[in-house]
């Protein structure tokens, strides 16, 4: 009997409310940028700060309006964007070009709401160039990119942590200049604690999937982390994730799962596509194979123990640690924030093959995986493509490993036939492996 999450609706509502606030806010501040950035500084400007983030927005638009999404991407290409650029980016810019915005509640608002400022990060080749293009198209929106230098265990490198802190500190002056508002450290510090808390709570939820049966599947995981991406600085967000953790803990205690039939446990590296492409998920499900751990859903907006003396672990961080953090000064808060953000698994893998490999090894071991599924994203300039091919080379002889191309939101580039073929083969190889064959 598969379990139904009680908290599901509240998550959807939280997400939609955030987008509605951004789309329809009559006053207050509209802030745009990768929500894959430290968000708390924005909240130092007040509670009436509404955020829209590139990746989560593009992803949810594609999830909510597949056909619109396809047209958005085409519109961006017609507008001259690169045929091989990030398709999250193209979908996002496509909405600007078409002067409309889709909201997760299923409505489309005519007239693209112009942001007051753009606050974002830069790590891959495109992250901040994305918003340069948006800014250009909207006639020059002030843009502050933070150089998220690093990869590997950057969060342990004081020179990098300081570099990121200094940029945020200057960023705060910039925010005051641009908005003419006074920056409240009190608000900022509160938001910082919330932000870190949510990231740690999500890490705890994910780690519970180490149990068998894993309480959550990829489809739920991909739907449950966006709120943390959209705006994780609020009390509401913290409460959501506390309640989620509670509920999933209870599932584990009672041995329940959203998909109880789990013959094979799969570790997945790639942007979640099984959500948008049930036909692939179905092949796995029919064979009782479930993705129980994935670096994208876990590590994009979640923190774990990570590197402890050069050894990676997906074990969770005790949420109480967050309450104990000393955030008495602005610099304290910035430092804590820089460390937590630099500690995101997805980023540590971007520019460090050894970190990526260690994460994969740890995930396979800690989540007791029967197979490794690698799905590099064709258009992704970050770690959702880097190193993946080499990983197949490295892991293939250790456990059943399959690799096929996928895409974030551009269905035109997905390898549906190939991924179906290879998924069937994957199941076959895991069967054989269990029997002591392949």
């Amino acid at each position: 009997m598969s379990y139904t999450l009680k908290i599901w609706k509240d998550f959807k509502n939280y997400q939609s409310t955030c987008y509605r606030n951004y789309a329809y806010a009559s006053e207050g501040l509209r802030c745009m940028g990768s929500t894959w950035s430290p968000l708390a500084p924005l909240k130092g400007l007040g509670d009436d700060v509404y955020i829209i983030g590139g990746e989560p927005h593009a992803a949810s638009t594609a999830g909510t309006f597949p056909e619109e999404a396809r047209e958005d991407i085409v519109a961006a290409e017609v507008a001259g964007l690169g045929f091989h650029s990030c398709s999250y980016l193209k979908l996002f810019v496509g909405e600007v070009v078409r002067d409309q915005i889709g909201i997760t509640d299923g409505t489309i608002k005519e007239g693209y709401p112009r942001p007051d400022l753009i606050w974002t990060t830069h790590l891959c080749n495109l992250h901040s160039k994305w918003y340069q293009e948006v800014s250009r198209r909207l006639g020059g929106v002030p843009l502050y990119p933070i150089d998220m230098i690093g990869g590997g265990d950057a969060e342990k490198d004081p020179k990098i942590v300081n570099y990121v802190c200094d940029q945020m500190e200057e960023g705060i002056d910039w925010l005051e200049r641009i908005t003419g508002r006074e920056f409240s450290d009190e608000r900022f510090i509160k938001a910082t604690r919330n932000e870190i808390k949510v990231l740690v709570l999500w890490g705890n939820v994910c780690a519970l999937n180490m149990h068998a049966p894993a309480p959550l599947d990829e489809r739920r995981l991909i739907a449950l982390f966006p709120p943390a991406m959209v705006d994780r600085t609020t009390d509401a967000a913290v409460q959501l994730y506390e309640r989620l953790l509670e509920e999933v803990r209870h599932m584990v205690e009672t041995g329940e799962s959203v998909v109880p039939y789990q013959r094979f446990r799969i570790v997945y590296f790639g942007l979640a596509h099984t959500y948008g492409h049930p036909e692939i998920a179905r092949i796995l499900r029919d064979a009782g194979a479930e993705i129980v751990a994935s670096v994208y859903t876990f590590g994009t907006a979640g923190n774990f123990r990570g590197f402890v003396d050069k050894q990676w672990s997906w074990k969770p961080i005790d949420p109480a640690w967050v309450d104990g953090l000393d955030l008495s000064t602005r610099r304290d808060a910035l430092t804590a924030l820089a460390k937590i953000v630099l500690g995101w698994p997805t980023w540590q893998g971007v520019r460090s093959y050894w970190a990526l490999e260690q994460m994969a090894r740890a995930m396979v071991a800690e989540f007791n995986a029967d197979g490794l599924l690698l799905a590099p994203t064709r258009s992704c300039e970050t770690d959702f493509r880097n190193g993946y091919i080499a990983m197949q080379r490295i892991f293939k002889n250790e456990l059943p490993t399959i690799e096929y191309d996928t895409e974030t939101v551009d269905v035109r580039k997905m390898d549906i036939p190939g991924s179906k073929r290879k998924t069937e083969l994957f199941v076959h190889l895991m069967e054989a492996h269990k029997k002591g064959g392949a």
Partner: protein
Amino acid sequence: MNEYASINEKLDWTGAKRIVAGIDVGAVSSKALVLLDGEPYAFSQVRTQRPGESAANALNAVSRRTGLMPENIHYTVATGRGRSQVTFARETVSEIACGAAGAVRIWGPSVRTVLDAGGESCKVIHCTEKGRATSFLWNDKCAAGIGRYMETFAGLVQKKVTEIGNIALQSEQFPKLSDFCPVYAQSEALDSIRSKVPLEQVIAAYHNAMAKRLSILVGRAGLKKDLVIIGGLARNPGIIHWLESILKVSNLAPKLEWDPAMTVALGAALFAESSYRGPESRT
């Protein structure tokens, strides 16, 4: 169609003052077009295999049809991807300039955008009312070979390339194929055998996808009206239908009296005509 030649019976070359030829050595087929005193007289088309030979073959096809011998031709201009191999041409001009010149000669001075949908490449050309190219966009690598892949696709569905275009008109509803890359589209089409999609729908979907890809190139270059389409794919009603509906334009269908695949060769012939008459004739 391995060799084909047509002739304007109303004209007679024996009395002509100026006999010039345009040779368009394309990636898939080579065409020759002869002007008599500036009027289109004969046209031929052969497969391109060895560009030099194919160019000659195209001209010979005209000779066989008309008795007009290569030595009777006063001036020849070569164009197309294989133009450098046409040893008997007096000069060469790019298919961009020729496409613009030819299109305006056929469709008139209102033409501003020419979509040349050929066998191996697609170009979008902007031009003046006098047929001078002012800018162009060449297909990106992922949109190469749409024309030849259409032939291959016809083979896979076991139809003639001349008939699939009409079959494509039979369905408006179908599961979409990738409109990013012909190889993906081909693979997805083959995969749709499994989902038992009716063949005419697969054919329609493939045309829709390729037309979508072409329309992205047109949009990217900028659609200035009037738009006309030339090249081999312009003969394909399915492509025309979907281009019209995607780009929201009309009358893309070829003129009855004019084979759009001849347009670039006509342009080359126009260059030959003006070169033969001398610089003063240049517009």
